């Protein structure tokens, strides 16, 4: 009797301990980065000699960080919107219709999550070269080529999360709407769309984050004077290791964290993902 209680309690402790360990493993680097961003000295060393906000000011002094941030943001937003426009109909088709190659097609849409970014980037680069040679138009290193690349990594997130929310949709509610006088279009807007909205929001959010932080694929797609924030960070780190990068990371963490918190207010992310 007592043995069972002790065993159960020990089990709970072990479980909580494992969870705490995993959480620490994820959070510790973040905590250090945030701490580092406020160090006064240029070469990071412990213990800090003092604290300062000068690295945050330093970001704004360097155009490449501001430009990189702005480019990453623009690409992320445009690619996310395009990813929604393509991914939502794709998820609807996969859910509604039974067609030949439905399984392979569904896997294909999730592929970009599995294929390494370097492979994806190389493939796209080669493709862009071919298109440029074949059609005689500028493709390599253009803004739209970059956006197109990012759409590819956003689509799987949208498809996956919208498909998940479609599974929770009671199809008879659509029939009920039609029975009450709504045609297919109105039924979609008034009944189907509200049901998959959480999936769309979550898919867009994760897609945006994936796009914003993407380094490997983007390396192949950027052009001269047009670099995304992760690439700017990488290039900076090749020459310097001062806490500017930590400050940039803190801003990124804050931005993404804020977006997630706001989203969570409208759509409970834990329920979708």
């Amino acid at each position, binding site marked *: 009797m007592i043995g069972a209680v002790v065993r159960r309690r020990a089990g709970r402790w072990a479980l909580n301990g494992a969870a705490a360990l995993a959480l620490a493993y994820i959070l510790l680097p973040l905590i250090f980065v945030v701490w580092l961003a406020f160090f006064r000295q240029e070469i990071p060393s412990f213990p800090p000699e003092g604290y300062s906000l000068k690295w945050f000011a330093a970001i704004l002094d360097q155009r490449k960080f501001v430009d990189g941030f702005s480019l990453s943001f623009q690409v992320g937003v445009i690619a996310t919107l395009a990813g929604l426009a393509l991914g939502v109909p794709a998820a609807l088709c996969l859910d509604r219709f039974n067609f030949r190659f439905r399984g392979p097609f569904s896997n294909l849409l999730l592929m970009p999550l599995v294929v390494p970014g370097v492979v994806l980037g190389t493939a796209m680069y080669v493709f862009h070269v071919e298109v440029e040679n074949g059609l005689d138009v500028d493709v390599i290193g253009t803004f739209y080529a970059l956006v197109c690349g990012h759409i590819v990594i956003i689509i799987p997130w949208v498809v996956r999360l919208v498909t998940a929310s479609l599974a929770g949709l009671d199809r*008879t509610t659509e029939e009920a709407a039609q029975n009450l006088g709504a045609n297919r279009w109105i039924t979609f807007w008034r009944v189907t769309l509200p049901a998959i909205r959480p999936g769309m929001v979550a898919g867009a959010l994760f897609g945006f984050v994936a796009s914003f932080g993407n380094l490997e694929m983007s390396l192949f797609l950027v052009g001269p004077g047009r670099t995304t924030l992760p690439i700017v960070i990488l290039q900076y780190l090749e020459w310097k290791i001062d806490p500017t990068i930590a400050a940039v990371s803190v801003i990124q963490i804050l931005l993404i964290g804020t977006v997630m918190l706001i989203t969570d207010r409208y759509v409970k992310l834990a329920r979708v993902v």
Partner: protein
Amino acid sequence: MARLDIRNLAKRYGDFYAVRDVSLQIADGEFLVLLGPSGCGKTTTLRMVAGFIEPSAGHVALGGSDVTRLPPWKRNAGMVFQSYALFPHMTVAQNVAFGLEMRKLPKVDIDKRVEEALALVRLGGYGARLPRQLSGGQQQRVALARALAIRPDVLLLDEPLSNLDAKLRQEVRVEIRELQRQLGLTTVMVTHDQEEALTMADRLVVMNEGSVCQVGSQRDLYERPATRFVAGFVGRSTFLAGTVEAPGRFQTDGGLNLACSGGAPGRAVLSLRPERVEIAATPLSGLDNRLSGAVEFVSYLGSLTDIHVRLSPADRLVVQVANREGGLAPDVGQTVHVGWPASAGQVFNE
């Protein structure tokens, strides 16, 4: 409200007929129930009336005008779904208002009619709630209010009570029936529950394997079932297999010679209602058929008791007796006497 005409309606999937040549006329204000086991085509028929399934052949006319080729949103049919199909992201009032918005009614009229519809199903004051905050029975009433608010030409009920618990189901049966009478609603309900069908319908349609077996009142179906299937599906029957030797003479496979009414010579089954058979501890008199046998099984059902009596190695009969003070309460193995008039049995030729 309007009359509903279904003419030669059929639905075929490849070689399989889900519905085969169904014709029904439902009068203005009539409550018709489609009854049958699952897969008999009753729901397919209802969905063809609603417009969700396109018929392979035949016509559906509402109030005299042919709606066969109209999409669901152009037919004025109000449907209550088995799962209720309430819009989960809309409040109760928004759910009920949906059909009225589609009809582009002015806001004031919508509010008024939503209120009326909710009052009708005794849910006044629940307008601001979300469907998930309501009990199953309340959700069912919202679904009904939503279907009624559009003032449909015909009300279609697809197993509307099957998700309610037994006690509530009995109350809601009466409630829907009263509402239907009060509003004079032309109604078609689909159910596999014969008790539900018997208590609610003006007229019943028994379906099996895509076809209509019989149309009639409760009494018609019970007293004069047209086929063996109806005899077995509506109420209970014992079927004794055998042969009609000559009109009025039936011999069971177990060798019993019985008096029956009608039947053409040849293979047949004799169907007997369990409560039409007399049973006693002592020999019976004055009945066309008098037999005895051993009690094999007894099941006590509260107001009734079922007694299974072995008449011959091949023939077992179920007899139902009302449980009264001093009534027969035989034990298993005891010999009892049973009997019935020739008119109590019905013969179905095979």
